[in-house]
Structures are given as C-alpha cells and as structure tokens.
C-alpha cells in the first residue's frame, strides 16, 4: 500500500513538475497547420493555430506563427499586431539579458529542467527574422520610415545577442570541463552529423546574422537618403556572404548616379518554403552512474528539412528571365544554431540523466515499483525540445532592378505553379515581396495583385 502510494506520488510529482508542455508535440501540431498553408487555405491554418493555443497565456511561438499566417493572408495590420506582441516578449528577454547577463546564463545552464519544459524564448535567428519580417510588412505598404525603426532594432538586437553568446560559449567550456563531460556531437553514434557539418552551415559566421537582413537595411537606408547608414548594411551583407556580385554591386552603386531619374529602384524579394522542423532522436550513451558505466538512451534534437517547395532559381519579369540571388537560408541557420547549442545540450542532458540514474537506483533499492514508475515518467518527460518557428520562410532570394513606373507582370516558373503577379510601380524605391509555399504564392499591399490561377488550369484542360 505504501509502495503504491509512493509510486503514485512519484508519477504525480513528475507530471506536476513538467506541466503540459512536456506532452505537447509541436512538430505534429504544426505539420497540420503547414499543410493548410501549403494548400492555400490560410483561414484553416489560422483556425487550427487558435485551436491548439486555447490558453490565455500565449507563448512567443503562437505570435510568431500567427504573424506569419496573417502576413500570408495579406492582413498586414493583424500580422503586425501579432508580431508586436512577439516583439514585446523578445524585448523583455533582451532587457533581462542586458541587465544581468550572468544571472541569465546561470538560469539557462540549469541542469534540473529539460529544455522542452522551459518557456520558449526563441532562437537567435528567429529574433532577428522577426523584425526583418516586420520591416517587410511595412515595406509592402511603402512605409519606409516605419521599416527603418524595425531595421534599427534588428541590428541593435543582433549586437546584444552577439555579446551574450560570446560569454555563453566561454562559460559553457568552463562548465563542461568542471563536470567532466567530454562527449561531442561527433561522438554520437547514429546522429546525422553530416547535416550539421555541411559547408553551408560551417561557412556561416554564426547562427543569427542574416545577409538578407543587412542588405534590406542597406536598401531602406539608401531609399531614405542615408548613405552613411546604407553603406555598412551592404558591407555587412557582403562580409556575411562573400563573393556575391549583387552585394558588392550595391556598395559600388551607392555613390554612383542612377540611370533615368524617372525610373524606380525595385527590390523583388522571393521568400519560399518553410523553416525546417526539429525532431527528437534517442541515442545510447555510456554514462557513469553510481560508479558504473551504464548505457543510457538520451534524446537529442535533429533538424528535419521541409520539402513542400522546390528552390526557385529565376522568375520572369515582363517575359524576360531574372536570376535570383539567395541571401538567407533558415535551414542553414537553424542547423548552425543546433550545431552551436549541441555541446550545451549534451552537457545538460548527460548531467540530468546521471542524477536521475542515481536517484532511480536509490528508489529501486527502496521499492522496485516506484523505481519503475520513475523510469516510465522520465521516458515521457525526456525528449528533445522540438519547438521552433515553423511557418517562417526558409529561403529568401532577391533581385534588384530599375523599372519604368507603371504596371509590370511577374511570373513564377511553371514548376512552382506558374503564378502571375501584377505589380504597380509608382515610387522611386519600392519593395515587392512574394511568399511561395508549395504551388501557392502569397503577396499583399497596394502595389501587388496575384492573378487567379483558375484560367491557366482551364486552358490546360481545354488542350
């Protein structure tokens, strides 16, 4: 009887400590949401998101996803409102980091709680992309001054992140040394190491700086006539992605007189696909528990690529092809973030498993049933953190052209559904942003109009 009570108490305590988020499978929730988005049914995707987030206490992820879905729908006001809420959360995080970095780092490095029961605070690249996407929302409505504020916030935030990570990596090295955990991700048998060591991941300077973000800031500052600020934007982008003619040209052209004054300088931004998912894999590792080496299965996150959308290499503008330059890949950034976090994840997971192993051994000696219950509870609780911003566009590609004012027609390759988009150019500087998911193209704002695809299909069937 006493044993049974103990067993129950252990289970209840385990559940109480972890809360509901331990059972939530963010991956499957968002798979469904993204399916709706891929089929073009944004309203269903939004309804599902609301259904999955019924609690009053919404987390950062909810606002991330909601903002992106509303943006796809063309509801920029709603999208900005959702992202503003996300921005508040990130702002508070930023303040807490600036105020007391040491305290933040010691909390984050805590070995007691599993990563997935922590309150979601967003990956660094997500924080940078948030304000970049917000700037794109404003640019779709030709609000360059508003976009300037978001862009300034982006590079200021980037500086805060850079300083924090510098300190964090230093501290982590010291701690790994202290705890005696020397396992590296390369030692994990069966872990897809190659995806983290891919050239596009290793060549990134870090996980959070985006060449697109800096290029866009250069463009916005240039449009506002602030060349002194535009130059570092283009220069930073060129440093992050070396040997890309588009970036070097932007810097060279900054001081040149532009062609015909009546023409517009147009930046076409094509964002395609969806950010990769995070999944959990179990890998057995030998751990020293109470003096013996015990093979213990541990959970680690892996990146699962999205395959909804093929890569677009060019688009057609008034029936002449335009090659796109890729400036941002969330897949690479997300893998880089995981690569940089892996030592910390291995350290925390191992230390937690060792202490749990010791506790279970003691409990086993007192009551085998309670020991078993604790084992079951820890299997439920111990899984890698699979939360990540999933509706975020994966690839960002751009092309910059000088266009005469008036109407123009953009069309996507037929492999992407061959959508046609009518654009109205009426300003000296203008940003046209397209979002492609599967065969769907989403675009909004006063200057852009996506032509319905029904006609094309009708012609195809007539043939």
């Amino acid at each position, binding site marked *: 009887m006493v044993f049974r009570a103990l067993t129950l108490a252990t289970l209840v305590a385990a559940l109480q400590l972890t809360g509901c988020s331990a059972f939530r499978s963010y991956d499957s929730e968002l798979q469904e949401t993204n399916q709706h988005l891929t089929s073009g049914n944004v309203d269903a995707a939004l309804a599902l998101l609301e259904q999955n987030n019924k609690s009053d206490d919404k987390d950062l992820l909810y606002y991330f996803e909601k903002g992106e879905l509303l943006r796809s729908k063309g509801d920029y006001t709603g999208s900005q409102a959702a992202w503003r809420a996300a921005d508040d959360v990130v702002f508070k995080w930023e303040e807490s980091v600036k105020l007391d970095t040491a305290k933040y780092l010691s909390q984050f490095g805590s070995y007691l709680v599993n990563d997935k029961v922590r309150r979601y605070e967003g990956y660094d690249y997500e924080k940078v992309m948030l304000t970049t996407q917000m700037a794109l929302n404003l640019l779709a409505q030709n609000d360059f001054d508003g976009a300037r504020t978001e862009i300034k916030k982006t590079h200021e935030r980037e500086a805060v992140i850079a300083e924090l990570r510098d300190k964090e990596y230093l501290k982590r090295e010291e701690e790994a040394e202290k705890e005696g955990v020397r396992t590296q991700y390369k030692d994990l048998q069966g872990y897809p190491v190659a995806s983290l060591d891919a050239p596009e991941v290793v060549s990134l300077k870090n996980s959070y700086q985006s060449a697109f973000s800096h290029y866009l800031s250069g463009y916005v500052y240039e449009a506002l*006539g602030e060349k*002194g*600020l535009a*130059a570092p934007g283009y220069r930073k982008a060129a440093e992050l992605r070396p040997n890309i003619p588009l970036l070097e040209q932007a810097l060279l052209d900054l001081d040149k007189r532009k062609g015909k004054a009546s023409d517009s300088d147009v930046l076409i931004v094509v964002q395609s696909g969806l950010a990769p998912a995070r999944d959990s894999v179990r890998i057995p590792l030998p751990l020293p528990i109470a003096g013996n080496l015990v093979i213990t299965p541990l959970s680690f996150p892996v990146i699962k690529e999205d395959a909804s959308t093929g890569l677009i290499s060019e688009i057609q503008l008034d029936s002449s092809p335009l090659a796109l330059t890729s400036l941002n890949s969330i897949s690479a950034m997300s893998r880089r973030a995981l690569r940089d976090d892996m030592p910390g994840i291995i350290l925390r997971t191992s230390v937690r498993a060792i202490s749990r192993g010791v506790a279970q051994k003691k409990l086993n000696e007192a009551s085998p049933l309670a020991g078993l219950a604790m084992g079951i509870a820890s299997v439920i609780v111990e899984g890698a953190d699979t939360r990540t911003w999933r509706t975020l566009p994966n690839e960002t590609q751009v092309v910059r052209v000088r266009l005469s004012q008036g109407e123009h027609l953009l069309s996507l390759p037929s492999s992407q559904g061959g959508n046609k988009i009518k654009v109205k150019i009426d300003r000296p500087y203008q940003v046209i942003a397209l979002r492609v998911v599967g065969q769907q193209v989403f675009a909004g704002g006063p200057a852009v109009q996506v032509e319905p695809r029904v006609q094309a299909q009708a012609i195809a069937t007539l043939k």
Partner: protein
Amino acid sequence: MFARISIAALTIALVSGCSTSSPVLGSKNIGYGDTKAVELVTNEFGSTDLQMIAESMTRSLAQSGVLHARPVVQVYDVKNKTSEYIDTREITTSIKTQLMKSGTARFASDNSDMQSQVDQLKLQNQTGLYKKNTVAKTGNMIAAQYRLEGSISSIVKRSSDYKDVFYKFSLQLIDVESGLSEWMDEKEIRKTTER
C-alpha cells in the same frame, strides 16, 4: 488677530520655502544620466565618440581662421567606411549646430533638406494659394562658398581575449570656386577591450 494670522502664514511660507522639488513618479531603478558622461558600455561606436569627434572638429575649424564673415557652407554626408551602423549625419549635425551657435558660419540647404526646400518654393509659387507679397521668390537662394565633407573608417582586430577598434574620422573644407582644400583635420579614437 489679523496680524497673528498673517505672521503664521508668513512663517509657514518661509519654512516651506519656494524651492519645493517636483514630485517623482514611478520606479527607483530609472534615472537621468549626465549626457556628457563617458560611456564605455561596449567598444562599439558610442555617444562619447560622437561628442568627442564633433567637439574636436568644431574647435579646429572655428580656430583655423578660414571662416571669415560667416561664409555659407554646404554640408555633405560623411562617408561611412566602417561595417558599423554609425549615423554619420548625427556627427555633422552636431558640428553644424555648434558652428551655427558660435556664429562662425551659415549653412545652405544640404542634401536632405533640399527636397523640402524645393517643395516649399514650388508650393508657394505654383499653387496660387498664397498672398502675392508674402510669397518667397525663386532664384534667391544663397549658394555655398565652401563645402564640408569627410569620412569615417575603422580597423577592427580581434583575438580570443582582446578586441581592438581604431576609428579615424577626417573632415575637410573645400572652396567651391577654386576647388582648393582650405582646412582639414582628423580625429583618431582607439578602443580596446579585454575579455
């Protein structure tokens, strides 16, 4: 009776004094700082650098003796050759403000103001909205005798426990008619951080 009350009132007034400080609302953690305080939060370009550059350039230019009889100067953007987002226009605005306040020079509409200036002239002259005798006539804008231009560049070096940033700001005053450089100066700033 009246005198007694008056004396009492007077005493109260004297005791309480006129210098009651304004009440402060809100948190104790927030305070106003000295805008001239040396700022060493990070070794990126900061407020102290901006003030140092502006002060040293203004002093040098004002004391150079080139600017006689408040000449008209056109300020160009300072070229930012660093990879840092430094608002160089803020530096030139500070220099401009200080020269203007000391009465050393006058300034023609620069690149950023020009559009508004032209728009206003067009509005007054072309719309027919304004009383004739109050309309600013076109063709009377004063052209600049000098132009002021410059650049800021940086050298950043980093090792595992050391970061060194060197900034060089240079500014020159050029006579528009002759194309001669009449004055030039530079300010160097070095900032190092040990981790």
